[in-house]
């Protein structure tokens, strides 16, 4: 009986695809026809549910939280890129109180969908304007998605693998050269702050160390430099030459510490004696030098 039902599903799906190819299912006249070849459709895995099938409910439920892309024609679309069939008697309520809601399902709202594990349809949709805590994982409900399936993804658009996007507190701990003027402040300049030389001010830890903590989503690729408040006083490499920006790739972690060393500052006059003038002169008309930090 079960095999017979699956064959029926397959037949219906193939029929729907064939009709779609022929433009018989009412695709918008202004839109382009979608020439999915029948051969490739046969090779594809049949959809677990189609638009017309109504499997019987099991009574078991799975809850999944996400953000809505759209809600129409009996389907709820999530930002995962999947559409899920909505039960005709779906209950809409407020995610916070569980009571009635004035919200209407629409794009960008957050929703907690309750799936009937047997039918795969959404029987309850709790709505919220703010992000909802995670419930079941995406894998648990992926099988209810209504879509034809192929194993291939467009490689240009695949998100970075291995990053969950959660916020990771990153502590930058930098050791500055002993020649750093005592009263100077240390800053982080980053590409995401337009390379402002005073973007992130650091806290002094001890004589030679400064520290600051910022939260970045995992997967963030950050370029940064250390400065003393201007680009004339940015860090340079051990040989005194200008350097490329430092790179940080934020990986999935609960916490991360980045340890750096600044060997030299660009404005350190490493070679001329501190005789208080731009040009060394045989006779010093200014007897009282003023150290550079005042």
């Amino acid at each position, binding site marked *: 009986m079960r095999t017979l039902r699956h064959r029926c599903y397959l037949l219906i799906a193939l029929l*729907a695809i064939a009709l*779609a190819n022929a433009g018989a299912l*009412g695709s*918008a006249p202004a*839109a*382009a026809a979608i020439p999915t070849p029948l051969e490739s459709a046969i090779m594809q895995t049949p959809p677990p549910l189609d*638009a017309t099938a109504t499997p019987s409910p099991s009574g078991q439920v799975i809850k999944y939280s996400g*953000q809505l892309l*759209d809600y129409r*024609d009996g389907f709820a679309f999530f930002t995962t*890129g*999947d*559409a899920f069939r909505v039960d005709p008697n779906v209950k809409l309520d407020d995610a916070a109180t569980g009571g009635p809601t004035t919200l209407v399902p629409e794009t960008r709202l957050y929703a907690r969908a309750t799936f009937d594990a047997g039918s795969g349809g959404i029987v309850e949709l709790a709505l919220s304007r*703010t*992000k909802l805590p995670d419930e079941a994982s995406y894998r648990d409900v992926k099988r209810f*998605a*209504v*879509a*034809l*399936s*192929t194993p291939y*993804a467009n490689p240009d*658009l*695949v*998100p970075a693998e291995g990053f969950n996007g959660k916020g990771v507190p990153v502590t930058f701990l930098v050791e500055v050269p*002993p020649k750093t003027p*005592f009263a100077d402040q240390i800053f982080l*300049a980053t590409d*995401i702050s*337009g*390379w*402002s030389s*005073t*973007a992130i*001010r650091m*806290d002094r830890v*001890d*004589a*030679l160390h400064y520290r600051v903590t910022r939260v970045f989503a995992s997967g*963030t690729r950050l370029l940064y*430099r250390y400065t003393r408040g201007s*680009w004339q006083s940015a860090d340079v*490499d051990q*040989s*005194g030459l200008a350097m490329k920006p430092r790179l940080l790739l934020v990986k999935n972690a609960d916490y991360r510490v980045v340890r750096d060393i600044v*060997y030299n500052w660009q404005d350190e006059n*490493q*070679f001329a*004696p*501190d*005789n208080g003038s*731009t*040009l060394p*002169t*045989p*006779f010093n*008309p200014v*007897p*009282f030098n003023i*150290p550079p930090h005042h």
Partner: protein
Amino acid sequence: MRVARTLVAATIAFVATAGLACAELLPTKVDVRADSVNFFPYANQTLLAAEGHVVVRFGKRTISGDALRWDLQKNRLTMTGAVRVIGGPAEIDGVAYERDLTSGNAYVMRIDPIPATYAVTGDDMRTAAEQPAPPGTFDAADLDGQRPYMRSHHAVVTPNAAVRMAPVEFPTGAGPSLRLPTYLYTLVQNQYINQSAAPATSFDQPFSLFGSPAALTAAHLRYDGINGVTEAIDQRLVDRDKAYLVASVLPFRDKQFDLLSFQVIRPGLQQTLSETHTFGADGINISSYKLQESGKLLTQTLNVNQFGASNSAEFDLSTYEHDIRHLFGYQLRASYGYDHNFDGFPYTNDYRIGGYGLLTSPSFTIAGMSLQAKYEYSLTAYDYPHEVTTGTTTFTAGKQINRSVNLFAQVQFEQNDNRYRDFAVGRIALGLPPPGIYRASDGTPFPGYFAYVGLNTYRSYELQSTINGRGDNRVQLSVYYNNDFPQFHGTGIEPLFFNVDIVERITPSLRIELGRGYSFGWNHEYLSPQYTFAISP
């Protein structure tokens, strides 16, 4: 100055080709209109978000929908709602559309005849492959509770270069918003795009005017204690990580033109040229050229400077800073130079050799207090019999009192000896420098340089405490005490200086820094307040 002229020519040449190097297969201009267009240049991503009747136009394409999220770093835009893409081979309808602007590839989610997602190339649905989009393809950043940096109904985006909004509103969260007719926010990720050639000042608020992936024109509102409020305009040109050129004009009170150019000739070899010209009766030209090369053991530097009619050149050899583990660190340098001092006294020209040594202790902790010490010594021997030596000893200590209060202290002793050996002053008939007796700004007379044979000592004691609040908020108190020899009334360093610095984040996009300092017992002024003021995002 033939070298300088050659460098200027080379700089102009690379600048002329800089724009070509950055060409990409991206739309040059993208026009975005909506009921509300918001820009979020925050830490995790640079995002343009638009809501309500959104229309995006670039080239022949028009994409319309209900909501837009555009990651400006990855150049990926997602339109949702009733999406329509026209201008391609055929019109596309759907509920969501995600496009990679660099490749032109896109995902479309449609609901007719059944919900399905298609991978599309070149907006040509004839090539569409029906397949589930990878999870997260249409995911949107959670902007709940975030205040945009700027907001408008219209934005023009030059991918990888800039976002211009006109008119624009800057929500502050603290009362009325700031409104401007137009504002340009640069997206250029080149680290040199914010280089500056203008002299440092206590307050500098840039206002970007025009931008491209390789250039930025900006106006500046500046403030310093001498010139007051002034304006500046600068032009920056960058060529990847290899070169940049910055030209800056201060046309009003400062009346100054500055040029700064930099080039990486090859890895380990760099050159820098800077020029300053001040206008007016005291107008002068200052030029500086530096060529640096780093080797395995030593770095070599050639410095050429011109100051009006005087000039100098210097060649330096330096070791890297080495650490002898658990003992100390050291660095050594040697230099040879030439000076031409126009109308100089007693010499017009001279040669000099120099040596420099740095000795640093490791940082160690005693009773919860971190300690560190260093000693620097430099000697410059000019043409006989002139010598200048400087020795500096510095001790630094820091202690964290609790989670929010830190205490730091530094003691520094510096001794300078600028002298003519072997009683040469008398033998070469230098005499005392006219007038022999100087007068301080308050009229107090004091003896000239030879009274102390150029010997002076600086002893400075600095104490600093930082009280950290939540986030960026903090108060920093500093006290400086200087006990110098010779210390003359009204000249030299003030004996006692107190400074308080307060940083307060008013809103997520506005931080204010206020500083106030007092001098005591200096130049008959026992209370000499100084202010600093800065605003940053």
